[in-house]
């Protein structure tokens, strides 16, 4: 019994990492094409991860290692609780609160790891990331609570199954305001523009990952892939109907990621406090408006 659960968990983990890295690779290619570059091949991300993992790395303290392990481990555990076309390692049905609070352990691990690296630019990035997190979690929670209230359950699986019966029953058509709000929140969650100040991909000397060399960065890249997977999977479960098979599910996930990429490619950047305030006004406002329309009117 427990062996079966672990075997399933292992296979799902492989799939999650594979799809996450594939998305990141395709994403690089698409961004390049939007900017009229040729871009790296779509499998470049796999090459990068393998190269980084094979590199000899420096570390400052075991807390740094603990942080890196917690970061990736926490996110993988989260991914194993998000239903992928209804598939889960055990019959958890995708408990929403667990997913929200388990993903936090991944972010905490990363924050701890970079703090233990002793570079002051790293916690600066974390401080921004957490401020942004306070920004996007609230509208996202509002959207989640709408669907929890509608289905009287706190499970992703139930929300996905409640949309059965053709595209007109899918939540993004029935609850468009919530969908837009959640999309903006997910844009911030993935740290894509206009919310990318915290990860600061263009500025090498700041941002959380400044002091993560070699295999730490490799783990960080896998973690990024897993987090993209989780975020797109959550939106897919919430808005894009029940999926019949994994391929269907993955295509929907890619659709969500594609939207995020296109916005990312053409947007400038928010200052972090302005980003938080923007997230508390527009997406939260949309979410609350949807809540009002759904439950009161």
């Amino acid at each position: 019994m427990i062996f079966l659960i672990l075997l399933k968990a292992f296979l799902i983990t492989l799939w999650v990492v594979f799809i996450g890295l594939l998305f990141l690779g395709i994403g690089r290619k698409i961004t390049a094409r939007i900017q009229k570059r040729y871009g790296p091949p779509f499998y470049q991300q796999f090459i990068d991860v393998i190269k980084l993992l094979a590199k000899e790395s420096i570390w400052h303290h075991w807390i740094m290692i603990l942080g890196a392990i917690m970061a990736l481990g926490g996110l993988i555990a989260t991914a194993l609780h998000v239903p992928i076309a209804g598939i889960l390692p055990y019959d958890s049905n995708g408990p929403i609160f667990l997913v929200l609070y388990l993903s936090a352990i991944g972010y905490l691990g990363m924050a701890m790891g970079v703090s233990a690296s002793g570079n002051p630019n790293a916690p600066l990035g974390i401080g921004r990331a957490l401020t942004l997190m306070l920004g996007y979690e609230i509208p996202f929670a509002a959207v989640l609570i709408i669907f929890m209230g509608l289905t009287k359950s706190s499970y992703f699986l139930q929300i996905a199954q409640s949309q059965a019966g053709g595209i007109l029953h899918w939540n993004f058509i029935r609850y468009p305001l919530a969908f837009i709000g959640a999309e903006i929140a997910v844009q911030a969650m993935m740290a894509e523009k206009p919310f990318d100040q915290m990860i600061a991909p263009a500025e090498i000397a700041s941002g959380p990952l400044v002091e993560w060399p070699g295999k730490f960065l490799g783990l960080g890249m896998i973690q990024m892939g897993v987090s993209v997977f989780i975020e797109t999977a959550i939106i897919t479960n919430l808005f894009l109907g029940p999926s019949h098979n994994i391929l269907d599910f993955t295509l929907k996930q890619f659709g969500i990621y594609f939207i995020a990429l296109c916005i990312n490619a053409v947007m400038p950047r928010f200052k972090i406090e302005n980003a938080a305030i923007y997230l508390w006004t527009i997406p939260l406002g949309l979410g609350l408006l949807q809540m009002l329309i759904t439950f009161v009117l």
Partner: protein
Amino acid sequence: MITFGTIVILGILISLIIWLFFRENKVISWILFILYTGFSFVLLLRLYGQWQYYEAFKSIIYLGNIKIKFTLQNNMLGWIFAILIFGISFFNGLFSLGFSKSKYSKNIVPLWTLILSASILILFAKDFILFFVGWEYLTWPVFFIVNQGKKKFYSDSMYYFALNVLGGMALMLGIWLVFKNTQTLDIKTSISILLSHKASIHTFWLLIPFFIAFLVKSAAYPFHVWAPRAHSSAPADFSPFISGIMIKFGIFGILLFIYPLLSKGFIPGTYHGVPTTAYFLSWLGIITSIVATVLAFSENNMKRLMAYSSVANVGYILTAIFLTTPLGIEGGIFHTINHMIFKVIIFITLAAVYFRTGTADMSKLGGIAYKMPITFMTFLIGIIAAAGIFPMNGFTSKWIIFQAILEKHFYLMAVAMFFASTGAFLYLYRALHSIFLGQIKPEHRDSVKEVPFLMQIPMWIGMILIISIGVFPGLVLKPLIPFFNSIGLPAKYILTSLSKLPGSFGQLNTLNAAIIFGFAAVLVTILFFVVAKHHKKPFMDNYTAGEDPKDWGVDENRYQFAYGFYQPFEKKFLPFFKRSVDMFWQYFGFYTKHLGEWFNNIFKDDNNFGYIAIIGIVIIFIFGGFVL
């Protein structure tokens, strides 16, 4: 065997013995304290299940024409509080025994034992008189401990004192009102008599003094101002007690007296099946947690920061309890217990840091984790629990609280609670980074080392408890089933196995989730150690765009980012929050003091006008009494 009487009398005796003979000897005092708490713990443990057990005073006291027989009645709620109080104090005593060797230690044992014996009176009192005696008897010694007899703590401890005396007076007024309405001082009887009266809006005024008394004690908004100040001026090893235990007496009072009245419709009016008053108080809990969370962002003193965290958690508990549903009560009590455990542990680690460094300013610390790994691990697990993240106990109770809110379909409340809950993550990480991680200061590099094993014992026990309750919430919830049955918790919300969290919108198998979490952690650990090698470098050997920080004259002291951590956020929000309530209490204090001085001046004047005036007023009253 007389249990309650023994604990109370023994507490007073030990307090007296220590005060008379061992005032100078901290080690013997603490050993006596540990023996006392351990002995009481064992005595109390045997009372589980004997809910009919009571101890009555032999003599009967007449109050006017009412006769009172003081009785201490065993009850489930009081028992669970008592067992936790004595258990936690036992381990806190072990820590303090080690702490007593430092120059920061004060001999607070005589007062602390008094507080513990007072807690028995509060928890098991059958009538309001004993309850009130215990309540006051708890308030005063804490003031002397918090004050430490030092002038610099005067104004901070005055916040505690003034507000809690206000609460005590409110409680007395409330008891008098209840007595006037019911002609009895027995708590249970008075509740049933009050409920038999016809509910009207006037009954609301009867409860106001009780609200003030209990909300002050539990440091809810707008009375929260005393909590951070009392924590920061209290001795480091006493702060766990304030946060972990003392503020919970307010919660206990609410559960004991206010909840039975509100849930039975004592005050007319309901909103979605919840009494309207309770609904607003539920929002008060949310406001408490949001205000405390936002105030904690800018806090630089680690004890004040964690005090704000306690206030925020009290907010969650109040929200859950004032839903007045059985599930809300379950969540509230469970979170109270969990918060007791993890907050005591967090404050113990802070005391350990203070023990070695002598400072509570986070900007003066940094990198302590590299020298105190056990303390760091304990703190880490404590804050993970405090942030409500999964494998720790904080998550399990937050889960039930969320389910209780959703059960009533208060969706906006759930969103607001999410804000506070996510905000907790911000200030907790800030504490983790500023105290324990980053660059270690040069002055701490050689002097700081791990605390002795004796002081580590509570940390180990705490870590084990936090994780095991997180994975097996049934360890706490199962023994409480008789209590939940008595408040009418539906069978579907009662735990069927050790690891199944109940909920209105779905259940959670915590054991399976923990297995998945462990699997992921093991998998990544294996991945990390099978791939390329890694070697260790000193902290200052950092990537700084290829330059050496030392070339710019930057040392470890200045290479740490700790001050003004969330500055962009603070700039936007804090002036608004910081001013309102604090200013109100400051003005309140200012005018009260002036009023006092005015009265004082009457007596100070040389012309004796004051005496004549007062005597005149008294005479008028006396004659007035005859005439009317």
